[in-house]
């Protein structure tokens, strides 16, 4: 990958709030079509890092370049055409229909004097199809389940037609079936649309099995940013999370699973 040009480059990016160091001298490069996961304990700076990448938080020190041009030099619409974002929690109104919400993802591509019209709704049909939302297109967000809503948020981000999509814990509130559905959807997008993904997650097995590279953040610093195999190495995870883990290997040693080690306290005789 080192011979291709990076999409995003971070050099010495630090962020301090109220005297508290949240990100400390972050250096990294993101390449086209990479499937990247970001793991780390709560408070490690994962969400803050994502918010730096879409400039919701303007960087205080260091440089962030998008396509070899400083992120500061982009207009809000220009950034939106390159980077889309799926937040951890949605705080907005749930009164939109699926069609409305997804087509509003095209804001950056619209003429400011026009409204979202019929042509914009047809433009999002392929996206509704990939995200299996066609049957839900007239429904109001309020009436959808958590898994369906998450697909809508991803679809809206895809409607932005950005090369890079940032997702902040897209599966934290989902049951196993819907979780896997989202993982497979993300993989499909990554492969067929050549979209670069940066996904903050607490699901270590997902990171292990799906990512091209996994970034381990702790106390605002990158501990490691490499192929996810390192997660199965002895004590790699306990160094990141300060907790013990077991690695289980399948019979043919083709797949590994990570489980946190815990003890059930004996309360009965």
């Amino acid at each position, binding site marked *: 990958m080192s011979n291709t040009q990076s999409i995003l480059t971070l050099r010495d990016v630090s962020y301090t709030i109220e005297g508290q160091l949240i990100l400390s001298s972050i250096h990294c490069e993101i390449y086209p079509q990479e499937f990247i996961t970001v793991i780390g304990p709560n408070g490690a700076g994962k969400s803050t890092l994502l918010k730096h990448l879409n400039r919701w938080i303007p960087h205080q020190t260091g440089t962030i370049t998008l396509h070899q041009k400083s992120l500061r030099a982009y207009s809000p619409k220009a950034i939106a055409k390159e980077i889309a974002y799926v937040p951890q929690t949605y705080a907005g109104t749930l009164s939109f229909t699926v069609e409305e919400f997804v087509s509003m993802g095209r804001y950056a591509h619209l003429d400011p004097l026009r409204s*979202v019209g019929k042509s914009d709704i047809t433009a999002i049909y392929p996206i509704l199809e990939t995200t299996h939302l066609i049957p839900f297109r007239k429904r109001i967000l309020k009436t959808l389940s958590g898994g369906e809503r998450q697909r809508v948020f991803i679809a809206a981000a895809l409607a932005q037609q950005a090369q890079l999509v940032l997702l902040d814990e897209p599966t934290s509130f989902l049951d196993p079936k819907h979780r896997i559905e989202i993982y497979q959807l993300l993989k499909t997008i990554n492969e067929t649309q050549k979209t670069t993904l940066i996904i903050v997650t607490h699901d270590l097995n997902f990171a292990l099995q799906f990512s091209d590279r996994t970034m381990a953040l702790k106390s605002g610093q990158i501990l490691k940013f490499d192929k996810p195999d390192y997660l199965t190495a002895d004590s790699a995870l306990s160094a990141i999370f300060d907790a013990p883990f077991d690695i289980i290997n399948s019979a043919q040693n083709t797949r590994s699973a990570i489980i946190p080690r815990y003890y059930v306290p004996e309360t009965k005789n």
Partner: protein
Amino acid sequence: MTTGGILAAAGVAFQALFRNPLATPYTLGVSSGAAFGAALTIKLGITMSLMGISGVSLGAFSGALLVVLIIYSFTQIRNDFSTSTMLLAGVAMSIFFSSLILLLQFLADFTQTVQIVRWLMGSLAVIGYQPLVSILPLGLIGLITLFWLRMDMNMMLMGEELAASRGVHVNRTKLLIFLSVSLMTSAVVSVCGPIGFIGLIIPHAVRRFVGIDHFILLPSSILVGAIFLALSDTLARMMIAPTEIPVGVITALVGGPFFLWILLRKDLEM
């Protein structure tokens, strides 16, 4: 009718900006500033007029502008356009100026006090043709700006962070909404007094029927606001004719129960 339309549109915009169903065009203290300006002019007995606009109106407009300026510089000093800061600053301004009005009433003689109270009720009675012409430019500029921002207002309903990630220039949008709403509200209030409830109930009532898309919501609210105020005014003139009840009393009397009825039927949704 112009007044009703402007107040309703202003309410729509502020409810989108603050994402708060209780926001009205008066939320940031514009009406209190105007009322103070009017009360001060009455107390000082200034009777000069300019281009057919009465001294009281001019005083009210200056008072409203003063509040807009204070809130604006406040956000600039803090370098922060957070909506909760603005809301709290607005509440503080309202309380401050209301107290000043009470002080003025205490100091004023009886006729002046009656005049001040009458003004606070909001009335269309004294409106001639001339004041209307003078508020029209500000009103139009404000309405055009809001209509131009209709898509941004839709986007703001997703929450500021998500709107920004979709390419909305969030701070510019907020500043423009704040300025256009404040200026057109100041213009209206200075001529008609603080006619209540229209900016609060019309947007909610209309949203109930046409949905949350500002492309439809804005013009419908303007229309319904205009009709509602015209009807209220007619009622105000007829109820105990030939005496004309201040129209602000009617809008609140009709508006209050009507609003409760809307609340009964569905939750407030933004």
